């Protein structure tokens, strides 16, 4: 009975927790219908998406956030973008350009401030400095660039991105006749870059087109009628005319629906996905699961462990849903880039935790602990990896094969997960053995068995995954094994897990030695997952980031420290193993 009550409370809490923020804010007829505007389609980076997603991605790139704070009030990404593209005067004062580097700031004549975010109006007076500095940085060979050059390039890229996107929503209707030619040329150039294509294919034009080019009337052509409707929305918004804006949005939507109903598909669902924000919310709950389970495990209390397990399942369901939603929206299998691999590893680790608790009676909450911390950490990593914009990007030609993405990539990622689960168990083994008396003989044996079992899975998955990767290479360019850095990284995991199993078979290590090796496995896996990308060579050189290198080193440092603790003499171990 008590169990039913606690479980009901947990479920109700989780439902409340996940639904918050999903519902769209109410809009009366006296307000701008921004929700309806946010649902309109746009094609950017090769994928059709609602303007809401475009605004969120765009803002994330500029400021690492999905909302803007103005005088303590939160402004949504889409409203911020609408203010900008419609040309509202206050748009230039949004503090959205995040610049952290002191030298870059001083060359722009800006003061350091909390949050490091600056407005367009603040940057623009010294824009010449940015341009000349970035030109000289670009002029250098990639290896010659120092930190300042890299930061300048990063800042300049943000700025150019902003300018390009703003230009692509320009209204050239009132451009004087003598400037038409030069404007047309500028637009042609701009179309060579990746810019948002806001006008969907319709009877007048079979392609997605950017707004500004569609509006530009040539000597023989008239502006595109669909684009004219879009521009009418922006003009009404700029003039603050609520009624006109709302009717223009409705008319535009109706026009697109009549011309090309397929363009509006999946858009509301994507907005729901955006607003749900399942991954961050799940991460918070997983942390809670971990904390509750720590208490339960140390105190050997069944109650908190069961409650935490229920909570973990409750967080796992939206987590699963969001991964499926991503597949549905992008049309690709779950893992296509570093971001989605983090989400998937977290998902699989939580699943492993749940299975461990459900199948292995002596897990005593260990599954909760592993699932909770792994789910939390990986989703947090994913959150920081999302800064590059759209995480549902289209795949380049050679990677664009759903079959291999669904087999090789998934298996290898599951292999990473299994080694991380083993390693996490190893960390708990060492920490609990050294600092508590919880690791008695029975627990010691149970934990060893769990580590051994997951190591076997890790070997199986990473071996098959690695070989499948080789088969993909063979099928793509006829070289099964090319010693590519990422292949080598995966091979290291296979070799390390093989060493662990052979060392155990040969009785070279005890339970504790096995745990120490498992923790070392974390380093090997982290190297393969992230470290290899930092070398920026080879076919898998995506996702290079400076801060990733730093955090990778921090992670390796902590794992080495735990290995060191694991090697301390038994005297100092409180559990005396």
């Amino acid at each position: 009975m008590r169990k039913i009550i606690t479980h009901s409370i947990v479920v109700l809490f989780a439902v409340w927790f996940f639904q918050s923020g999903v519902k769209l804010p109410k809009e009366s007829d006296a307000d701008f219908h921004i929700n309806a505007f946010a649902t309109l389609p746009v094609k950017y980076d090769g994928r059709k998406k609602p303007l809401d997603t475009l605004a969120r991605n765009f803002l994330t790139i500029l400021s690492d956030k999905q909302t803007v704070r103005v005088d303590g009030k939160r402004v949504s990404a889409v409203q911020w973008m609408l203010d900008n593209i419609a040309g509202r005067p206050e748009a230039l004062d949004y503090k959205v350009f995040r610049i952290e580097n002191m030298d870059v700031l001083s060359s722009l004549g800006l003061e350091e401030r909390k949050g490091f975010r600056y407005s367009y109006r603040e940057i623009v007076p010294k824009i010449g400095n940015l341009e000349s500095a970035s030109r000289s940085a670009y002029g250098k060979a990639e290896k010659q660039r120092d930190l300042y050059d890299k930061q300048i390039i990063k800042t300049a890229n943000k700025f150019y991105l902003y300018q390009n996107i703003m230009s692509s929503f320009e209204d050239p209707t009132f451009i004087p006749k003598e400037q038409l030619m030069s404007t047309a040329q500028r637009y042609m150039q701009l179309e060579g870059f990746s810019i948002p294509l806001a006008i969907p294919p319709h009877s007048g034009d079979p392609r997605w087109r950017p707004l500004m080019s569609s509006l530009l009337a040539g000597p023989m052509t008239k502006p595109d009628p669909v684009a004219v409707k879009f521009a009418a929305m922006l003009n009404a918004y700029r003039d603050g005319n609520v009624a006109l804006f709302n009717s223009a949005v409705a008319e535009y939507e109706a026009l697109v629906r009549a011309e090309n109903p397929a363009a509006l598909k999946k858009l509301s669902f994507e907005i729901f996905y955006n607003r749900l924000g399942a991954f961050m919310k799940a991460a918070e709950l997983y942390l809670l699961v971990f904390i509750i389970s720590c208490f339960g495990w140390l105190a050997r209390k069944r109650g908190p462990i069961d409650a935490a397990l229920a909570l973990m399942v409750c967080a796992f369901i939206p987590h699963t849903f969001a991964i499926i939603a991503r597949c549905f929206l992008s049309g690709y299998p779950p893992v296509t880039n570093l971001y989605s691999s983090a989400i998937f590893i977290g998902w699989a680790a939580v699943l492993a935790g749940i299975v461990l608790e459900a199948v292995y009676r002596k897990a005593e909450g260990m599954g909760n602990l592993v699932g909770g911390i792994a789910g939390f950490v990986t989703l947090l990593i994913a959150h920081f990896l999302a800064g590059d914009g759209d995480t549902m990007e289209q795949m380049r030609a050679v990677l664009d094969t759903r079959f291999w993405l669904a087999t090789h990539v998934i298996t290898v990622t599951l292999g990473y997960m299994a080694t991380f689960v083993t390693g996490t168990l190893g960390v708990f083994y060492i920490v609990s053995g050294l600092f508590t008396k919880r690791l008695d003989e029975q627990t010691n044996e149970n934990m060893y068995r769990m580590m051994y079992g997951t190591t076997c899975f890790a070997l199986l998955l990473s071996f098959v995954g690695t070989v499948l990767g080789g088969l993909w290479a063979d099928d793509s360019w006829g070289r099964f094994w090319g010693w590519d850095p990422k292949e080598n990284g995966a091979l290291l995991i296979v070799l390390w897990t093989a060493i662990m199993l052979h060392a155990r078979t040969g009785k070279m290590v005890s339970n504790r030695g096995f745990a120490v090796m498992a923790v070392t496995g974390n380093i090997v896996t982290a190297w393969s997952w992230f470290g290899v990308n930092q070398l920026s060579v080879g076919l898998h050189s995506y996702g290079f980031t400076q801060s990733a290198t730093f955090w990778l080193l921090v992670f390796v440092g902590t794992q080495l420290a735990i290995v060191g603790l694991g090697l301390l003499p038994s005297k100092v171990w409180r559990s005396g193993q």
Partner: protein
Amino acid sequence: MKKIVDFFLSLKLTVTLLALSMVLVFAGTLAQVDKGIWTVVAQYFRCFIAWIDLPIFFPRSWDVPDIRIPFPGGFLIGWLMVINLLMVHWSNFKIQAKGGRRIAGIIVLLLGVLVTCGVMFGWGTAPVADTQSDAFWRVFLRLGRGTLAAVVLYLASLLLYRKRAGLVLVHAGILFLMVGEFMTALYAVEATMTIKEGETVNYVDHSQQIELAFTDGSNPDYDRVIVIPERRLKPGSVVSDPGLPFDVRVNRFMDNSSQPRPLAGIPAAMKANYPSYEGYGSRLFVDGVPENSGTGGGRNAPAVDIDLLDRTTGQSIGRYVLSLWFYPNFVNRAWDMPQTIVADGKPFTAYLRSRREYLTSPDGNAFSIKLLDFVHEKYEGTQTPKDFASQIILVNAGDHVERELRIWMNNPLRYARRTFYQSGFLPDDSGTVLQVVHNDSWMIPYLACMIVFVGMAAQFVQSLRRSQRRSS
């Protein structure tokens, strides 16, 4: 002797070798920041003694002395692992079956070997294996064939080794994979094929080797080609061929040469010792430069400085410089610069070119590929490539093959023991570059993967059930 045997029998050796290979693989990964992949493969993996550069372990901005550390190379570790594996199995994994079971086991084993060979050599597959649909079925079918072989081998192993069947199979699979990679290292050949739209090509370029080719175009019905292979192009050597009205003396061989520049724009100091050539060399400056190393990714462009000698007098009738830069396939057809030579009243054209191999099917019949169309698709509104595809006609008159086929990313054509992959394209999408690989052991990884998978899965299921029984 016993000590040596014990040494090879110990699992400690296994663990040590695995650990050494980890260090080697790690070093070989780091080395790729500075060096090209093939240099690294030769220096670290395909050798008995690897020389590890010390600086690779540190940030490149640090001033680390450039010391090379000797380390067991890939071949050495590989061989020791093979010996270790075979010895451990020989002594610890005795055949446990007797009598009828043993005979049945051996029969099934032979059957398994037969199935494996059948899968490996593609018995029962189409001679022209192009891919019409997605990779899905094709690869699944191959893995399915692999699984069939693996299951038969597992049954044999089960009959012979009982409880240890899974472990034996796993290690057999690993051994098979290593043998396959060793064979690939020794025998696989990679070449390229450059075809312009509308053009028919019947040869491949072996880009790692070069040759000097003279074409006698005096007969209107056919060309006669006289080829001097790379090994004959030693400085100072004189090559004589009855097909040529002159002898060829090699003055200098350059492993890599600079892109030709107009001689007029070269500073006087640089061309002070520049020989006076006939032909392109009289207008262009071609000189030896250090070999390309790694990161630039550029290929070396050898060049050769030759004198053509009159047979009777032994006097030079002209000194020429020939560079791979003049060969159109090397520059993706950006230009074509054949060196024309008139000797004995006959016109000759000369190229220093990649070694050319004319395509033949296993029956000895020549075949060719015509490129109808090359497609390069991008995602709308981006520069991200979406698809590269070559629409071709494969013609082999001798074998009565004439097929229109499509080769595109991840979807190669397999024909005549070669595989044709979409690899690159010519400027303005005017043609295609195919990678042509000849590797008879390409099916081994498919087989080995499934053999190891079946073995491991069987072993884990077995130990899982044992531990369940123990706990209940």
